[in-house]
């Protein structure tokens, strides 16, 4: 059985799809993390975010995270979906869902997955402001 769903897409992410993938009668809970595009960075108004990826490697790294989470937290299934391309304020760049027999495992798996994704998965965002644009985390 496939216990991981990994996706990078330029289409709108689908929360229902991530939910349906992990849902199972054996589970007592499903946890979801939904990332959303915030309208400011350090007091500066963000107009939109542009996500670019090294797609084949990003998919591999997301798969690794999912497999580690399965082993580490005793979860049943996990979905990690990430968007690419231009996103507007309020749009969803990332959805992570995890199902487990007991809720604690699901919470921990989601937190682990988003924290690790932000450290290891080759995806970059460029913040667009009304007066320019900046690659996030790029400069000292």
């Amino acid at each position, binding site marked *: 059985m496939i216990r991981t769903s990994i996706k990078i897409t330029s289409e709108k992410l689908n929360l229902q799809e991530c939910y349906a993938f992990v849902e199972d009668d054996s589970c007592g809970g499903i946890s979801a993390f939904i990332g959303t595009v915030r309208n400011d960075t350090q007091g500066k108004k963000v107009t939109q975010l542009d996500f670019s990826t090294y797609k084949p490697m990003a998919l591999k790294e997301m798969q690794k995270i999912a497999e580690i989470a399965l082993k580490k937290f005793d979860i049943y299934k996990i979905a990690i979906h990430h968007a690419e391309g231009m996103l507007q304020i309020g749009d969803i*760049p*990332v959805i992570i869902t995890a199902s487990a027999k007991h809720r604690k495992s699901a919470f921990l798996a989601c937190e682990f997955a988003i924290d690790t994704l*932000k450290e*290891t998965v080759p*995806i970059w965002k460029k913040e667009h402001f009304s007066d320019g644009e900046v*690659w996030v*985390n*790029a*400069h000292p």
Partner: protein
Amino acid sequence: MNINTLFFGITTDLIGTSNLELQLDHAMSIADFKMLLMATYPQLKNLASYAIAVNENYATDNVILKNNDTVAIIPPVSGG
């Protein structure tokens, strides 16, 4: 020796392209490759840091490059 070199994120802007075919006249480690890259493209010094991936896997400085490897320059990631 032919190395397909990929640039992402801010490095695409710094180098001005996302893909270069680099010819090396002898085998070298990632550490040597990084020195060569910095010497050829000093604008990369504007980066906070960067990682290297060889054939879609993160690689440490001691890895030795082979002919036709794909090397990716990975600036600090910011997904999520």
